[in-house]
C-alpha cells in the first residue's frame, strides 16, 4: 500500500455533493483528505451537513430514499462507490450518537455481531480471542469478563458505548467513523471514551463528528469546519483553532453561532 502515491491519506473526498431532495444539498462540493492514524474532527453548527458527510464515508447515507450523490470518495485510492457496500463497511466501521448494542444479544454476541451478521463462521476459540482482544482494546474487558453472557443493555451508557466501539473494531477496520459518540454520555464516561480514542488512533484512522469544540481541540489532530453544507476550512487542529483563516470559522470558534 505504501507504494501508492497518496499513502499518507486513507480517505480522499473529491467534490462530494449530497442532496436529500433534488436541488437541496446537505453537503455541497466538499473536497478533503483524511490522514492515516490520526483523529480528524468534523465540526459545525447543527444542520451543517457534518453527519451526512461522515455517513457518506461508509455509504450509510444511502439508507435514506431518493438520495442524490455526486463526486467521489476514495479509500486507499479506490472509489467506495465501486466497491460492494458489504466490503466497504467492513473496512470503514461506525459508532453512533447513542449507544446501540443489540438488545437481543449478549455482550459476547454483540462484540462478534459483525461476524455473525456477515455469515462468517469460525471456531469458538477464535471467537473468544477476538472478543477478549476487542474488549481489552476498549478497556472494557476487566469490567465485563465475568458477565460476557449477559445482555449488553444491562451496562451503563458509557460501557455500552465502549461495547459498540469494540463491536466496530472487532472487525479490524481501517477507518472508524464516530458520530458524536459522547453526546449522550456523562463527563466521566466522555473522558474515558476520549482517552480510548487517543489509544485507538495508533491502530486505526478515526473520523469524529462533534459539536463540542473543546473535545475537538483536546483530541483531534486535524479539524474540518463545515457550514451550510460547505467545507469552510480544514487543516491541523492547532492551526485551525489558533489562527482560523475564514471569518466564519472564527465566528464559530468564538461562540457566535451553533
Amino acid at each position, binding site marked *: 500500500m505504501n507504494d501508492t502515491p497518496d499513502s499518507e491519506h486513507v480517505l480522499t473526498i473529491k467534490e462530494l455533493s449530497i442532496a436529500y431532495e433534488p436541488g437541496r444539498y446537505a453537503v455541497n462540493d466538499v473536497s478533503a483528505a483524511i490522514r492515516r492514524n490520526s483523529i480528524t474532527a468534523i465540526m459545525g453548527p447543527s444542520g451543517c451537513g457534518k453527519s451526512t458527510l461522515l455517513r457518506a464515508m461508509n455509504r450509510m447515507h444511502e439508507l435514506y430514499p431518493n438520495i442524490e450523490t455526486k463526486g467521489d470518495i476514495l479509500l486507499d485510492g479506490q472509489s467506495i462507490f465501486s466497491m*460492494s457496500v*458489504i*466490503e466497504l463497511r*467492513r473496512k470503514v466501521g461506525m459508532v453512533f450518537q447513542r449507544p446501540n448494542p443489540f438488545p437481543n444479544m449478549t455482550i459476547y454476541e454483540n462484540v462478534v455481531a459483525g461476524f455473525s451478521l*456477515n*455469515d*462468517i463462521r*469460525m471456531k469458538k476459540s477464535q471467537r473468544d480471542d477476538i472478543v477478549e482482544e476487542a474488549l481489552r482494546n476498549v478497556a472494557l474487558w476487566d469490567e465485563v469478563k465475568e458477565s460476557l453472557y449477559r445482555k449488553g443493555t444491562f451496562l451503563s451508557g458509557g460501557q455500552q458505548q465502549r461495547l459498540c466501539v469494540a463491536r466496530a473494531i472487532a472487525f479490524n477496520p481501517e477507518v472508524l467513523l464516530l458520530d458524536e459518540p459522547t453526546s449522550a454520555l456523562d463527563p466521566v464516561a466522555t473522558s474515558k471514551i476520549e482517552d480510548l480514542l487517543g489509544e485507538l488512533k495508533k491502530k486505526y484512522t478515526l473520523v469524529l463528528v462533534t459539536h463540542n469544540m473543546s473535545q475537538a481541540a483536546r483530541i483531534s489532530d486535524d479539524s474540518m469546519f463545515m457550514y451550510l453544507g460547505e467545507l469552510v476550512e480544514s487543516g491541523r487542529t492547532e492551526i485551525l483553532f489558533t489562527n482560523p483563516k475564514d471569518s466564519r470559522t472564527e465566528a464559530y470558534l468564538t461562540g457566535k453561532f451553533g
Partner: protein
Amino acid sequence: MKKELSDNIGRRNRANGWFRSLVIAGSVITIIPIFLIVGNLAVKGYRQINLAFFTEPAPDTFQAMMAASSGEIIPGGIANGLTGSLLMVLMASLIAVPLGLMTGIYIYENSTRRYAAFIRSLTEILQGVPSIILGIIAYLWIVKNITRGYSALAGSVSLTIMMLPLIIRSTEETMRMIPVTIREAAFALGTPYYKMIYKILIPVSFSGLATGILLALSRILGETAPLMLTALGSPAISLDITRPVSAVPLLIWDFYNDPNMVNLVWSASLFLMAFVLSMNLLARSVASKHKYI
C-alpha cells in the same frame, strides 16, 4: 477470513435480492383480492343499479324468475333493506354514540384508577366478541322477552352492543393524544369540569371522534349475522320497531339463497361494498385532514 468475506458477498447479495422480490411478490398477492372483488362486483353488479333499485322493495321470486328467463333486468330493488338498515343503524347510533363518548371520557379522565382500567379491559373483551353472539344476546333479551318476536328493536340492540366498544376505544385513544397541558390550562382558568369536557375536550378531539364514529358505522352497516337472529328480514318497507325489518346485508343473504335473484345479489353487494368503503374512506380523510392534535 478476508477471503471468506469476498466469497460470500455474492451469495448474500443474491439472497438479499431474492428476499426483496419475495416481499414485493407477497405484497402484490395480498392486494390482488381487492381488485378482483371490486372488479367482479362492478362488472356484474352495475346493470341492476337504477332508480328503482333504490326506491322499490325487493321483488318476489316469481317476478325475478320471469325477468331472468327473458334476460331482462330484475324489477324492484332494495328499498326495504335500505330503510331497515337506516332505521336500525340510526337507533343503534343514538344510544351507542353518547354512551360510548361518556364512557370513553370516563376511562380517559380516570385512567389511573383500577376500576377504569377494569372497564377498559371489559371493553376490549366486548370488542372481540363475535357478532353472532351479540345476535344470540339480543334474541334472548329482546326477541324472547320484550317484542315477543323478531324485531327492528332487537336488531338495533345487537348493533348497539357492537358499536359501543368501538366508540369507547376510539374516544379514549383520541383523547389520550391531547396534551395534558390543554386540560390543565382550562382548569387554571377556573373552567368547570363539564365545560372543560364539552368546550375543550370534545372540540379538540372532534376529528378523531368523528373518524371513530364513521368507522364504527361502516362496521355495523355491513353486519349480517346478528341481524339474522334478531331483525329476521321483511319483504315490505317497515318502520315499526317492534316488527321484523329487512336490512341491506339481510337482503343479500335472502337473494343469495334464491337462485333467481343472483343478478340482484351482485348489485346489492356492489352497493353495500361501495357504501361501506366510501364511509371508510370518508373516515380516513377526516382523520388525515384535521390532525391538529
